[in-house]
């Protein structure tokens, strides 16, 4: 294998992992309350700024950094659910949808006000910036750390959903919220939990994103958020393994588009991604792993 190919594979893996991390939360939330959460990508931005603040403060040891960011994302996700979405429980789908869009716009602009519109550059602690040689290719350590951590998270979450009582409750609500309530499941708490877990994973993605690219800005979450939605659609909305596989498919095809086509096309990267979205919605709206639902198409 040429080192160029290895490099592209590593790039695809790490980008796909970032999409997968965001997509998991997206998919969980949709699965439980059938809500497309536009504000989800902005949690990634919040995670990135938390990382920035913690690194800049200089007092946090690097081992504690991911833990603090994940905890912060958990809190932020839960807070958003309490402030914006708790009050619209039971409202028509379209209302919930407009509320998430409003929440996203509000978060982005609050970030613009309080964090400034200038993109910020920062350097990660040395440990994260190491580069190593893999089959002749020069690869950043973080690009290898990202997929490993992502897969561990995905594995832990899948086990949690499959095996624990809370996980079973989440699946029950996804299957039939009314019947689940009759069985004594408190949907409100589960919704909070799902938002918080989604927020934690998105914040982790934000940490990785800032480590990978070294630059963050208040609007950085929007496009990855939309792309994560695309990833969940590819995999089948509401399906957890689907979201992860969808994230990787999207990551790899984006890298392949940029890496293997002549460079004059690389500017069209986003057009390609969203053209793909439109195509998938037309051809297979239920995704790879999703069950066909009448309401979608």
């Amino acid at each position, binding site marked *: 294998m040429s080192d160029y190919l290895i490099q592209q594979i590593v790039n695809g893996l790490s980008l796909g992992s970032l999409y997968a991390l965001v997509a998991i939360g997206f998919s969980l939330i949709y699965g439980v309350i059938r809500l*497309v959460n536009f504000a989800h990508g902005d949690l990634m931005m919040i995670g990135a700024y938390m990382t920035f603040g913690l690194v800049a403060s200089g007092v946090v040891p690097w081992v504690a950094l991911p833990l603090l960011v994940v905890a912060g994302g958990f809190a932020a996700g839960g807070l958003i659910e309490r402030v*914006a979405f708790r*009050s*619209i429980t039971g*409202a*028509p*789908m*379209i*209302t919930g*949808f*407009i*509320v998430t*869009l*409003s*929440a996203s*716009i*509000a978060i*982005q*602009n*609050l970030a*613009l*006000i309080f964090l400034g*519109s200038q993109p910020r550059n920062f350097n990660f602690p040395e440990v994260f910036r190491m580069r190593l040689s893999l089959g002749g290719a020069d690869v950043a350590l973080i690009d290898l750390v990202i997929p490993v951590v992502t897969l561990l998270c995905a594995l832990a979450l899948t086990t949690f959903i499959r095996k624990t009582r809370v996980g079973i409750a989440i699946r029950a609500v996804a299957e039939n919220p009314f019947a689940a309530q009759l069985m004594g499941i408190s949907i409100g708490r589960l919704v909070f939990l799902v938002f918080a877990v989604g927020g934690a994973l998105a914040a982790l993605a934000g940490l990785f994103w800032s480590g990978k690219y070294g630059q963050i800005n208040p609007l950085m979450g*929007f*496009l990855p958020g*939309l792309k994560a*939605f*695309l990833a969940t659609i590819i995999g089948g909305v509401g399906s957890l393994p689907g979201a992860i596989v969808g994230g990787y498919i999207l990551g790899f095809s984006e890298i392949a588009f940029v890496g293997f086509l002549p460079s004059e096309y690389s*500017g*069209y*990267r*986003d*057009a390609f991604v*969203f*053209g793909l*979205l*439109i195509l998938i*919605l*037309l051809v297979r*709206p239920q995704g790879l792993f999703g069950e066909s639902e009448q*309401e*979608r*198409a």
Partner: protein
Amino acid sequence: MKTMELSPVRAFILLVVAVGGLVLAVDGSGNGYYQTFTALTLINVMLAVSLTMTNGFTGMFSLGHPAFMTMGAYVALLFTYPVGRKGFAMPALPDIIAQVHLPLPLAALVGGVIAALAGWLIGRLMVHLQTHYLAVATLGLIIVVQTFALNLDGITRGGRGITGVPREATLSMIGICTVLVIILCWRIKHASLGRAMLAVRENEMAARCFGIDAFRLKLLAFVLGAGIAGFCGALLPHVVSVMSPKSFGLILAFNLIAIIVVGGQGSIVGAILAAVFISVGSESLRRVEETTGVYGVTQVIVAVALISFLLVRPKGLFGLKEPFIRTS
């Protein structure tokens, strides 16, 4: 309340007098700031009314207006940009177009027609998608169109944007267009066509059982909305004199949705009032932003206000109703 209701004919006369009076007064004042602001407000009214037709009448949830506006704007600019500067600014333009110069109304019409054609092609694929899938697909469409505008820099000048666009959009022309768009949408809503669209919105399955071709009606609403959006998009650079790929994006899509949600999805009077209200409101807030230097406050306020509004009045100010006008 009965005494406040006007017959549609009187309401039409009132509309013409109000818009005509506004245009004459502002044009006569000679104040450039008020002229620009009035022009932008009237264009917002057209956009809101057309979106209330696309989304409100049929129950679709399209965010795609900015995409069609961008198309309309760039198409119109091909014909209105001064011929002498085209060779320099748009080197990739074919000679046939580079030599042509059209007056703005005609160019904007071409822009609108091209946008409507694009809307027809895209709508055929998209209109059967339900609410949030359509919303995300049309958001994707905005990004696709913006990406093309950014990369086709032989025609669009890419991220640098096209500057020095002649300010050919006169207030009287915009006023006339606004009245025409409002009448068009009003006529559609209160004809059998509009009633069929509303039936689709209320219950698509039942409407289809009555022999209503839901797909065709949704497509029609989508295409008309795209055409009007393209036309408005074509006018806008000729008001503010610049155009860039990011001119019409997510924020605009969101503000338009805010307008039709506040006005009541499907209410034309509601859309007009909400468009004027939000235009005036955000312009005054923008001046606050400029004096305090805190940018972004307007959008936060619009977003928070929209969330609170949805909680208190989920159907908007008027729902589907047309206040002050007798409709039956």
